[in-house]
């Protein structure tokens, strides 16, 4: 396991994608839950709970894509044509949900239209992200530094399953976020949803985890052959522990614990995928080192990244701190 620039960069890109999942997951989840808001007032609150932070969250997606372009250009050049349709649909979904944050305050007649755009765009974006993940796990054909498959290769039962899993999982993050940020009836409603969504998310994670080792013999070995499996098995055990803290948190009417536990589900699933993939960046045949840009590019980009990422994390944390606590129903600039 050479510890070199490409390896460090794989870690940074993985970190950016994970940060994206952690941050944008709950605000896409708010969109997925949007039609279940019982009144205009509740829906306003739901949206306002993420309005000050959503574009910062989505910037991590640009970081993931832009970072891949910068340091693993070959992976980017293979992945994007392979996932042409889900990526395009995801982008269109993000457009609809992104503009709704402002649009729905600017019109009365069309407010319902933008509410639907917020919901539909969020579901579409989440589903496509899950489908893209599933397609990546299943592996992508490469020949001569380019994607060599057909343009519907991504569409399989497995990728639809991962798509569904991500939609449900994001909805869980959204519900537990609202448990954290709201009070009264809305909080009660979301706590109720969290039970169901939590159970469904865990069931789907379990199903995907069982199916994944059968997508590729390498994954199977990674998970079920000694001694590697001893380390790999830590992940499912931690998942069990988090399952307990999640449901206990809901049961004890804790505000923060269910949200953090749900984020933990995502972090662990992500680590699980990492264990399956390494050292591939695009299974089954493109490794991190094959896809990496020359060291001159990696080194130049790394200097700024190690300086700027901590600063970004600091002011992002500050922005969350400024808007901490329960939502004030009367606040908002609109």
């Amino acid at each position, binding site marked *: 396991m050479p510890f070199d620039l490409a390896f460090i960069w794989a870690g940074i890109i993985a970190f950016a994608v994970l940060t994206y999942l952690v941050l944008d997951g709950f605000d896409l989840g708010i969109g997925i839950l949007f039609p279940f808001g019982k009144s205009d007032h509740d829906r306003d609150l739901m949206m306002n709970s993420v309005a000050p932070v959503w574009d910062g969250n989505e910037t991590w997606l640009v970081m993931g894509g832009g970072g891949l*372009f910068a340091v693993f250009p070959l992976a980017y050049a293979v992945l994007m044509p392979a996932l042409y349709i889900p990526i395009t649909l995801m982008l269109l979904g993000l457009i609809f949900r992104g503009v709704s944050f402002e649009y729905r305050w600017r019109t009365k007649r069309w407010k319902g239209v933008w509410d639907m755009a917020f919901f539909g765009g969020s579901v579409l974006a989440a589903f496509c992200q899950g489908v893209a993940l599933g397609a990546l796990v299943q592996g992508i054909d490469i020949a001569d530094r380019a994607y060599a498959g057909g343009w519907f290769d991504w569409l399989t039962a497995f990728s639809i399953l991962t798509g569904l899993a991500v939609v449900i999982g994001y909805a869980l993050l959204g519900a537990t976020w609202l448990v954290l940020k709201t009070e009264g009836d809305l909080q009660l409603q979301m706590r109720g949803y969290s039970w169901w969504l939590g159970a469904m998310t865990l069931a789907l994670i379990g199903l995907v985890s069982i199916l994944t080792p059968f997508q590729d013999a390498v994954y199977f070995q990674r998970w079920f052959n000694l001694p590697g499996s001893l380390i790999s098995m830590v992940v499912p055990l931690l998942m069990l522990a988090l399952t307990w803290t999640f449901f206990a948190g809901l049961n004890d009417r804790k505000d923060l614990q269910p949200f953090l536990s749900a984020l933990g589900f995502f972090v662990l699933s992500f680590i699980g995928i990492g264990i399956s993939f390494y050292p591939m960046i695009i299974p089954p045949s493109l490794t991190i080192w094959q896809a990496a840009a020359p060291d001159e590019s990696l080194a130049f980009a790394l200097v700024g990244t190690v300086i700027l990422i901590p600063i970004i994390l600091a002011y992002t944390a500050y922005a969350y701190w400024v808007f901490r606590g329960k939502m004030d129903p009367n606040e908002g600039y609109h």
Partner: protein
Amino acid sequence: MLESFSAETLARVQFAFTVSFHIIFPAFSIGLASYLAVLNGLWLRKRDETYLNLFNYWKKIFAMAFGMGVVSGIVMSYQFGTNWSVFSDKAGPVVGPLMAYEVLSAFFLEAGFLGIMLFGRDRVGDRLHMFATAMVAVGTLMSATWILAVNSWMQTPAGFGIGENGQFIPLDWWAITFNPSFPYRLVHMVLAAFLTVAFVVGAVSALHLLRDRADRESRRAFSMAMWMAVVVTPMQIMAGDLHGLNTLEHQPIKVAAMEGHFDREGDHQPFALFGIPNEKDGRLDHAIEIPYLGSLILTHTIDEQIKGLNEFAREEWPPVAIVFFSFRVMVAIGFAMLGLGLWSIWARWRNGLYDWPWLHRAALVMGPSGFVAVLAGWITTEVGRQPYTVYGLLRTSDSLAPVDAPAVATSLVAFAVVYFFVFGAGVFYILRMMNQRPATPKTGLHDGPVRAAGITPAAQIDPNFIPGAQPKEN
């Protein structure tokens, strides 16, 4: 209809379409973020509520434009890979890190502080709020810097080698970033963004002055906008001239296309005010020319000659007509801007700045001129770079992703429908907000005292309007 086009043409149309839509929003938000920082600074310094009212008015419009810029920008960051994957693979090692720096130093900064700027004044206090506002402005300028470094490198590549696998290998990052056309392009674009906003602000203020010439906020904003027009337009014309000389040095074919210059003729170069480029026969038809002016513009002498298109191989030509016409549109608008600026100086001197309806009508008409000029300028430089993506080194036809024409056609139609629908609605809402006067207590429809009919002049329907009163912070 789209079946007859090649995947390359469709991919080019798609990129041109999505990037043209996108550039409108950053061009606006780069200028507006700086304007907002100035307004907020003036409010904190002078405690004159006119500035605060203007700040609160334009910040809501900024939020709209910024949101549209974010979502149309995410599309751009993935389009390189979906449609131009060979370009991405080959040029990624050079342009990728520059874009990563744009994300890290600009996008995060803007997005991180935007929430505080929009929603946070009461929570963080004036000082930190001012800091956040300034950071948003700095972020927009940083973003322009990096992306223009990328674009300029594609126009005038420098500081690289070619690897065994065909990739561009970065050798000297300083030379890559500060490539020969970068400083000119950066100055030209940032000034263009400032002018775009100056003319939008000028038009909105002029609209409200036409309705009520005593409107304090509109008087202040109109004055500021016209100062910008007077001061920045001449700077921009000079910057454009220098940029043109730089282009002549590095991309003479582009300049020949801009000029509609096919052959050398006589001992000096005329400038064609108008003409119809005839690419087939290699000449400019129906030309209306001013003698000597071409030499004067391009070489700053009256008798020096430059190379014509016919002296270059045909497969190196860009589409001449597009470049020729878009360049003329940009230049014409530049001089119209200068004209309005001079008119406003005259009006100011004669104490008519707030009272001359024809000046206000002209300013209103000139409202969208910045956007048109920005688009025309980008069309000139980007179409003029054809047939290359990395000038002289990587042809557009060799940059394409292995995606079939039907897939590109379908996504193109999807983008077109969605963009016209979504951004059309957004522009409509922005115009409706602009139609309300700046001191209206609650701009927008949400929960203000008077809601119906956003198209009626707000002053006439808003019974709570008190001139100069501070609107309740919401």
